[in-house]
């Protein structure tokens, strides 16, 4: 039964991936003017830089002479085989650039999500247990501040405070240069928002569960407070939190763009920004496609986790 549900959920990913592919594909064609020029990183004013023969060759390369539906089909077929085309601007395989950027982004996302879950859940549970006391008010104040803080500004604030005023961490740069310490500030910057949201969700979910009769029963039968809170209440409170974690994981991909850019981490986000600045439409297309795939994959993983953890979903 569970297997059937998982297979069904896997099939549901196909339309999403189709959507990602369609959006990424249309990017090149949405540019005003000649898509071949756009692929070369030029706009209409730059047309004199190249000969008509070059343009014809590019059109031939990209298959721009074919009907658009066939172009899309061909493009998807090649993308499925791992061929995202070749950047004319940088004269490199897009696939290679994208795959080189992927690990940094994945490390950043996993570190962020891990710390956000640990911090968010701890703060949320404490807040619920000590409801109405100082610790609760402080936690709630920090949570609402965290939800409202712009990620990119918080990143600058962290650099200013923890890399300049008190120089503990490197200002920016890849793991290759500084080792894992390079990821501390980016992770903190990116984790603030999801951690705060998780804390808020955890608090309200925990409070709701704590008001249930079963908690009174558990207390009445003489269980220790710790056992009631962490075994009986937490297990039941965790489900809505997982949903939030899912949404957040997906949103994180967006925040990661700015954070990677600020900390000069060579991930997918930096690749996207660089390709935008260099008007390298094909790399941009590849980056958007892969970001969309990561996005869909994280949604999928969260849903699957949800099915495994919460038996009620399986019914």
């Amino acid at each position: 039964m569970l297997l059937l549900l998982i297979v069904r959920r896997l099939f549901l990913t196909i339309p999403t991936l189709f959507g990602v592919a369609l959006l990424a594909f249309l990017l090149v064609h949405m540019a005003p003017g000649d898509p071949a020029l756009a692929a070369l990183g030029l706009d209409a004013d730059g047309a004199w830089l190249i000969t008509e023969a070059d343009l014809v060759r590019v059109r031939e390369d990209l298959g721009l002479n074919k009907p658009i539906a066939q172009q899309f089909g061909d493009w998807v077929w090649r993308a499925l085989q791992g061929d995202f085309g070749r950047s004319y601007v940088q004269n490199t395989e897009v696939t290679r650039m994208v795959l080189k950027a992927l690990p940094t982004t994945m490390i950043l996302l996993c570190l962020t999500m891990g710390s956000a879950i640990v911090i968010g859940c701890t703060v949320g549970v404490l807040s619920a247990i000590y409801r109405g006391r100082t610790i609760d008010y402080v936690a709630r104040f920090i949570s609402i501040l965290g939800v409202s803080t712009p990620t990119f500004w918080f990143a600058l604030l962290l650099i200013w405070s923890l890399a300049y005023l008190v120089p503990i961490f490197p200002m920016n740069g890849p793991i290759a240069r500084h080792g894992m310490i390079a990821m501390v500030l980016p992770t903190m910057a990116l984790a603030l928002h999801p951690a705060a949201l998780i804390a808020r969700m955890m608090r309200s979910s925990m409070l709701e569960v704590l008001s249930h009769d079963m908690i009174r029963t558990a207390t009445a039968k003489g269980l220790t407070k710790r056992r009631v809170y962490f075994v009986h209440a937490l297990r039941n409170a965790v489900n809505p939190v997982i949903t939030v974690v899912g949404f957040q994981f997906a949103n994180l991909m967006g925040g990661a763009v700015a954070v990677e850019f600020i900390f000069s981490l060579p991930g997918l986000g930096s690749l996207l920004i660089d390709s935008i600045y260099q008007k390298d439409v094909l790399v941009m297309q590849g980056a958007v496609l892969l970001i969309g795939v990561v996005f869909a994959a994280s949604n999928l993983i969260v849903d699957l986790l949800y099915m495994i953890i919460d038996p009620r979903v399986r019914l």
Partner: protein
Amino acid sequence: MSQTASEYEGRAGAHRTSLVRARESFAIFLSKPLNAASFALTASLCLIAILAPVLAPYPYDAIDLAKGLTPPSWDNLLGTDTAGRDIFSRLLYGARMSLQIALVTVAFGMLVGVTIGAVAGYFGRWVDEVLMRIVEIFMAVPGIVMALALVAVLGPSIPSIILALSIRRITQFARVTRGAVLSVKTMDYISACHALGMSHPRIIFGHVLPNCVGPLIVLSSVLIGNVILTESALSFLGMGIQEPTPSIGTMIASGNEFLTFAPWISLFPGLFLLLVMLGFNLLGDGLRDHLDPRDGNVS
């Protein structure tokens, strides 16, 4: 939010107009200190945006190179940037710009999104299926990535920024509206409308949507904050509002390289953005608690 509903039911209190009731409801909303604070925050943002030309001590583009990178002082409350432009004045105009873009974006997103969501939810079946599948396609890529790519492709102008930001709002409005419509359309008074032989558009716009206002108000308040943030992020990344037009995002970005010896360039605009976000988030929270029928505190 059962104003129209109770009018049909003809219960006591039906003689009061919905305007009076909205005003009473608003007074109850403001009686909570946190709600009042969030309302004050967002209202003062609106005031700042409207009064920017009056409040600003300097024009936003007044370059004074001799005063470049002055720390905060009485002359320049929040200091100056590299070109000696007054950060306080630029911030006021930036807020004006951000709020204008946010309002247009949310209004546009609401118009299109609510229509899509209402039609999908009301007619159901294949209409619902087709519309929501299309909406889902646009949710397949993270909002900011989508907006970045779109602005990059269309060129960074205000209309393309608004378009890029609206797409995600359309999907959000469509989904929320659809959900609300699904629950409203099973109500007895909607069946009564059918029985009276009303046309579909009249039922949708006259009787279904007015009863979906609650969630839409909450969503709008959250989304205005959301759009201001996303627009700032776009501008920060260089794909939003372009110099010399002031925008909070570009201001924060322009301080990036001077962080070590002129931190005020980035810090104050960011702090301001934080306050704006705080206002809209608290307002959204407060409105959600206030309008959520499950709590039953609206009637």
